[in-house]
């Protein structure tokens, strides 16, 4: 310390003082460590699981949605060929509404149904750096709707994806896919890449074994440039465009005979986004980030058409405050314009066009209570939205590292799920009752209608979590997390008196969205990583979940029983083997418990991949998925009615060439 304080006393800057010290003195200086910011997994006071590029490649998945099956604590149910129900820690449904998904800083959560259109979330999978899956609330940093989890997908920088890549294949369900990427240099300090991809996927099967009407295809392209004009500045500009067609059979309702009709239809999806980001690094423990993005997404079917435009700005600033504190603060705003121009009897939004604005600010402080042993992170998000006004979402997290290889953490947080347009503006007809039949003997045809409620409130979660990570030996690491979630003001569907205003043409049975459910969920996840030998790695996980929902007094909710449609137990075991002759054999076995309320039995699935990489630049692979069954159901849909379909056994081959 002596040498350094001498350096500081002199009029020179601390940097040149350091440069003039001897090596011996340098090794005696006590430093402030910043490694905590490049947070290693073992240091994070939250339940985090990372899906790496290697995991993506070796699992043989072809979509981001399917890749999420690797993460413990997530439920992934394929509804049909192009629809997935995905959630973290419960409340799964087609538009599961408590999971925030971010791709390279861009939120892909749709404010329409407060879910994610998984069919259009895609990129060049080979360029994904990692998929970070955070179970539990992330609202303090990520904002509203990061209630039960956050999925943060980041792609590699353009600098890391230089050169060309061609990949293509064909199989029983993958009816032809291909992608191409090229990365190059623009001058001395700038890099770029461009990509394009296409796929055509086969339909799934109906319970009878016949093919369903849900085949789909999509074209997608994009670019990314990373420019470092001067050392501490990094400017990133990236964007994607896509267009696709998805076959679909829908149930449409009409106020005259035949009242209900199953029609084959096509969903046309198209979209574009562009993200600009400026990062300035002041020093190792201080940086500044500014980001803005535009995202446009169109979706059109026979009964629904939405034009969604989003403009988002955010900035974030991080700095050490004294010796023991590290503060991050930021602010942002988002404008969304959702225009629904196809109102009809089955589905309508009133008003058809709605602009919403969100303003937010957050601050988070990481306080070292005991050097390298005990760290407290406290913070809160303050977010103002047009539906419910100001929402405050604080959290406190404590990390204790008794010694290297062991860490224990605990957290308490509050998060909210703000109303979606569907809950405020929609009118959805979802059942038709024929006249004169038991048990109601209606005098005219009846329609069950769910209506939006302008007074719908935010759902609120208080979450309590604990976790323990241990590395008992070099080759084995274990990660355990448990949670108790206390929910209030959950969405309920309340029946209203029958409406005879259109009698004798039909009778309406209106229901309205309200916040009359409450309940608890609890459970835990265990993840293990075991490097058995240099050439054989295992990953395993077990997830347990229990959901208990209750109506509040006076509620007539009809959804609470259906909402408890989550699997209690899930087990996954994966093995990655590097064999001689540049061969790789990878297996994934999964057990998923039954979904009692949807009458879906438990299932065991097996995926296999055999890869051969004769040279650094060429890779061949054969992948088989769901090999144990000819077909099996995974999930059915609730509010909007499509066909119930089943997932089929599939095999495909792929060739990848790098140059």
């Amino acid at each position, binding site marked *: 310390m002596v040498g350094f304080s001498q350096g500081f006393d002199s009029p020179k800057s601390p940097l040149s003082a350091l440069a003039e010290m001897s*090596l011996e003195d340098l090794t005696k200086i006590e*430093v402030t460590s*910043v490694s905590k910011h490049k947070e290693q997994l073992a240091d994070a006071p939250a339940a985090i699981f990372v899906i790496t590029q290697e995991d993506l490649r070796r699992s043989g998945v072809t979509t981001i949605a399917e890749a999420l099956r690797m993460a413990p604590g997530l439920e992934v149910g394929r509804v049909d060929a192009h629809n997935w129900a995905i959630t973290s820690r419960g409340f799964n449904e087609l538009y599961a509404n408590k999971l925030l998904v971010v791709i390279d800083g861009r939120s892909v959560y749709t404010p329409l149904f407060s879910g994610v259109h998984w069919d259009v979330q895609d990129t060049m999978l080979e360029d994904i750096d990692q998929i970070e899956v955070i179970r539990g609330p992330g609202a303090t940093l990520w904002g509203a709707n990061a209630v039960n989890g956050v999925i943060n997908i980041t792609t590699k920088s353009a600098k890391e994806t230089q050169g060309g890549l061609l990949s293509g294949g064909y199989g029983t369900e993958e009816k032809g896919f291909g992608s191409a990427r090229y990365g190059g240099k623009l001058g001395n300090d700038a890099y770029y890449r461009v990509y394009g991809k296409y796929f055509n996927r086969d339909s799934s099967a109906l319970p009878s074994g016949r093919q369903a009407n849900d085949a789909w295809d999509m074209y997608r392209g994009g670019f990314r440039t990373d420019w*470092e004009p001067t050392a501490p500045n990094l400017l990133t500009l990236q964007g994607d465009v896509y267009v696709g067609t998805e076959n679909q059979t829908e149930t449409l309702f009409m106020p005259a005979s035949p009242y209900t009709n199953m029609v084959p239809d096509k969903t046309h999806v198209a979209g574009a986004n562009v993200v600009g980001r400026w990062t300035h690094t002041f*020093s190792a423990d201080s940086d500044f980030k500014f980001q803005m993005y535009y995202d446009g997404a169109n979706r059109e079917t026979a009964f629904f058409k939405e034009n969604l435009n989003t*403009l988002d700005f955010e900035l974030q600033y991080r700095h050490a405050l004294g010796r023991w504190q590290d503060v991050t603060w930021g602010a942002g*705003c988002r404008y969304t314009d959702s225009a629904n121009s196809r109102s009809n009897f089955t589905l309508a939004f009133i008003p058809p066009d*709605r602009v919403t604005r969100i303003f937010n600010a957050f601050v988070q402080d990481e306080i070292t209570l005991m050097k390298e042993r005990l760290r407290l992170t406290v913070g809160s998000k303050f977010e103002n939205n047009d539906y419910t006004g100001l929402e405050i979402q604080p959290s406190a997290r404590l990390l204790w590292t008794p010694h290297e290889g062991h860490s224990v953490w605990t957290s308490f947080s509050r998060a909210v799920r703000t109303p979606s347009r569907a809950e405020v503006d929609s009118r959805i007809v979802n059942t038709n009752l024929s006249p004169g039949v038991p048990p109601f003997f209606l005098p005219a045809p009846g329609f069950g209608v769910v209506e939006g409620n302008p007074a719908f409130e935010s759902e609120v979660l208080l979450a309590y979590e604990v976790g323990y990570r241990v590395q008992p030996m070099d080759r084995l690491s274990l990660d355990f997390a448990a949670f108790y979630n206390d929910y209030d003001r959950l969405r309920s569907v309340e029946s209203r008196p029958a409406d005879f205003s259109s009698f004798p043409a039909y009778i309406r049975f209106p229901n309205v969205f309200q916040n009359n459910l409450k309940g608890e969920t609890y459970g835990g996840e265990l993840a293990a990583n075991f490097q058995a030998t240099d050439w054989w790695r295992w990953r395993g996980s077990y997830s347990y979940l229990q959901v208990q929902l209750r109506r509040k007094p006076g509620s007539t909710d009809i959804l609470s029983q259906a909402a408890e449609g989550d699997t209690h137990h899930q087990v996954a075991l994966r093995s990655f083997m590097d064999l001689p002759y540049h061969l790789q054999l990878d297996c994934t076995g999964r057990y998923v418990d039954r979904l009692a309320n949807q009458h879906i039995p438990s299932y065991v699935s097996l995926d296999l991949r055999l890869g051969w990489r004769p040279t650094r630049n060429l890779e061949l692979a054969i992948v088989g998925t769901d090999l144990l069954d000819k077909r099996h159901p995974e999930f059915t849909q609730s509010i909007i009615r499509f066909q119930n379909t089943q997932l089929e056994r599939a095999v495909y081959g792929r060739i990848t060439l790098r140059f």
Partner: protein
Amino acid sequence: MNTPPSANPWRPLTQCSRQPTCWGCYGLSFLLLFAGLWADLVALCAETVPPGEYQVKAAILYKLTKYVDWPPPSFPFTNSPLILVILGQDNFGDDFKRMIEEKAINGRKLVLKRMAWGEELKPAHLIFVSASEKKRLPEIMDKLRGANVLTVGESDSFIALGGMINLAMKDNKIRPEVNLAATERAHLQISSKLLSIAQVVGQKPGENKN
């Protein structure tokens, strides 16, 4: 809250000039005020903060270049610069660059480059492998085998995987560890001065695995 139908998604932005109570204007002025206060607060506290980990690491890297001799073919010309590369995430900010500006080692200018995995690393004389590259270390070491490049790292497994100098952190101090077998394989001469300060850790030639 309710807005009339319109196809123009940017309308709320353009309303700012007409609405004195616009949220965005409030937010912006609040932010500017906050940022100003913050900068003062930070400046106040900065005096008491000891040097950052990466400021010291930068100084050590700079010093290392004085204690290592590269074989003559590493420098094609008498004035060939000494090239330092940061591989992976750069935690130095601009401190490192400012530190070595205008500095020379044995008459050679120092040049600092940032590189990502996948770029051609061979022209470098010293490569600092950032902690961000931990997972790729075996691959990186494999690629650099046989090159006359001093590899410096900051990961626990760095030496075991064939790295030459690891900047280990002990009691919040940075303690270099040197792998002599690896430096010898690369035909780099390490001065006895460095060896007396650093901890020499053994690894017999040929033992490093990937």
